[in-house]
């Protein structure tokens, strides 16, 4: 990268200060220090003196877009976003959960983000793999060009090649470990439904107890609800305490939607989300 994490942090603080000082926004969604350097936390700066707590380092993986829906309409919000996070903002704009005039997007072009738990670099294998935010009002740095992008769908190849029975055994083993803590749902910027389908009793869509078939029902339905909306930020998989590779299924759905409908979630303000749209010439072959 042309600039370091520290330099991005300086720019982020400077812009946040300016936006809060001038009253252009009343809250800045960014990051702060946690109990150690590898464990930062999401942060909402509400006044100029809060800005000194803002940081940015390679562990700031949080998708701050999930906090946008907590604020009442009309609240002016500035938000720090990386590539996938900016896609989430676009998707939320499509779904009218936030207005374009109410949000100031501070885009951060970056690579080299690391997983706090494993220390491994985060790339297209578990996220969308893009470096540059799709949407921004302010760019904190320079767009990154010329660096090869790890395809976000490459990691699917061994799973697609698996025999269907083996694939079922794989997913059953993963979902048997699920304890139904719902961290995946809460970490996701697109899961803002209140009440969530799984919490409804009339009708009951899935069993509450953390057993095999109820777990399948919860996760498959969630994958369906996110098809064409998931921006591949990887937060759900990082949030999962028992390390279920949810990103695999979300990526598969993103790949299918791309192939069937020619679109990726949150890639453009002009596109309409795939499942609330249609083309008369959509092929019947997609149903085979």
């Amino acid at each position: 990268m042309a600039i370091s994490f520290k330099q991005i942090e300086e720019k982020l603080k400077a812009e946040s200060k300016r936006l809060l000082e001038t009253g252009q926004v009343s809250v800045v969604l960014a990051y702060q220090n946690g109990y150690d350097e590898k464990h930062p936390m999401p942060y909402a700066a509400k006044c100029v003196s809060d800005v000194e707590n803002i940081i940015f380092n390679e562990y700031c993986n949080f998708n701050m877009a999930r906090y946008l829906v907590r604020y009442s309409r009309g609240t002016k919000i500035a938000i720090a976003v990386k590539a996938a996070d900016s896609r989430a903002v676009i998707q939320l704009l499509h779904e009218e959960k936030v207005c374009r005039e109410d949000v100031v997007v501070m885009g951060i072009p970056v690579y080299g983000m690391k997983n706090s738990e494993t220390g491994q670099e985060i790339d297209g294998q578990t996220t969308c793999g893009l470096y540059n935010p799709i949407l921004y009002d302010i760019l904190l740095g320079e767009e990154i060009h010329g660096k090869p992008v790890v395809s976000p769908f490459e990691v699917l190849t061994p799973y697609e090649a698996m025999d269907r029975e083996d694939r079922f055994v794989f997913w059953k083993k993963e979902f048997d470990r699920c304890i139904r803590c719902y961290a995946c749902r809460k970490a996701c910027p697109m899961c803002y439904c209140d009440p969530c389908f799984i919490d409804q009793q009339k009708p009951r869509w899935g069993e509450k107890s953390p057993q095999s078939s109820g777990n399948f029902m919860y996760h498959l339905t969630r994958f369906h609800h996110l098809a064409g909306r998931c921006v591949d930020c990887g937060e759900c998989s990082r949030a999962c305490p028992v390390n279920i590779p949810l990103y695999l299924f979300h990526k598969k759905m993103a790949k299918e939607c791309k192939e069937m409908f020619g679109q990726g979630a949150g890639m453009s303000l002009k596109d309409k989300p795939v499942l609330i749209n249609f083309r008369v010439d959509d092929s019947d072959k997609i149903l085979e």
Partner: protein
Amino acid sequence: MLKKTAIDKISELASRMMEQGTLIAPVKEDGYFHFREIADVQAVDLNYHNTVTSPKSVFFPPVEDFIHYETGKSILDAVAVELNVKPTFLFGVRPCDVRSFQIMDIHFSGTGSVDPYWQKRREATVIFGYAFYLDEPAQAEEFYSTLGIGAADPEGSDIFMIRKENDLLLKSMTSKGEKILDRLSVHDAATPEDEKYFEEYIHRGRQTRTRFTCIEKSNIAKKMEDLFHNNDFWMKISSACLSCGVCTFLCPNCYCFDICDETLFGKGTRRRVWDACMFTDFTLEASGHNPRTQVYQRLRQKINHKYSYHVRKYDTISCVGCGRCTRHCPVNIDIFSIVEDAMKA
């Protein structure tokens, strides 16, 4: 009595335990440790710091079936599920987690009415506590020293185990433990030097400190009470919180549950499943009213329950400082720092 066995002969000890009952021990799955019922003795792995999920699921499983019923019939025809528990060996539990069982006992058997499911399992289980390895530093998230638990604290264990180089020293701490240790034919005799090492290790464990903050029970309870209406404090603390449920489900001291009837085509089961006060619908009432709609209200409740209400009622903090809540929080909230901030506020 003190016995000794070589660590690389653990599988022999494990097979003897499996001959006499059910063995539950730490197992490595995809790089992370969990307590699982052992089928293959080679799976037992003691090279771990602590498990992801706490061992409370041994006594308080995530799903517990109570009654089988048929919707067309009378409730009197419902059949209670028989709980048959084989003698169980819970092997390799860290001192903080062992202490958590004693705190959970308060709720499941100490308030006058006894939960027979908890009680039956508790009585059938022999707990093999396992000291933390003192040559390894404690992890940043742990704070059991603050709660008066030593890194090699044998309290609550039936048999306590300490690692001595390539050997495992096992000492019976209760009569239950003594009987079992005898029956397990652990052959190697311990030397007087081993005895000394054992006692010194426990002592050293009391000095090995994790994060430590001087917290006096009644101080913290009073402080929490004073802070209850300070919405600014609680809103600031909870601004990052996702209100998911990971901290609750991994906490060895959280015991909230929901009873649900799961029915299909006229036949069903009434079961108990884990619930979390962090869930949005935890306090949702049939009328539709929900007293705790905001994240800050739910987080305030959780912290207050553990550090204030529990202290007032039972004179114990409902926390053992294992650090799982902080370690696995998706937004890295340091739960203990909330308590520290409350003390300073």
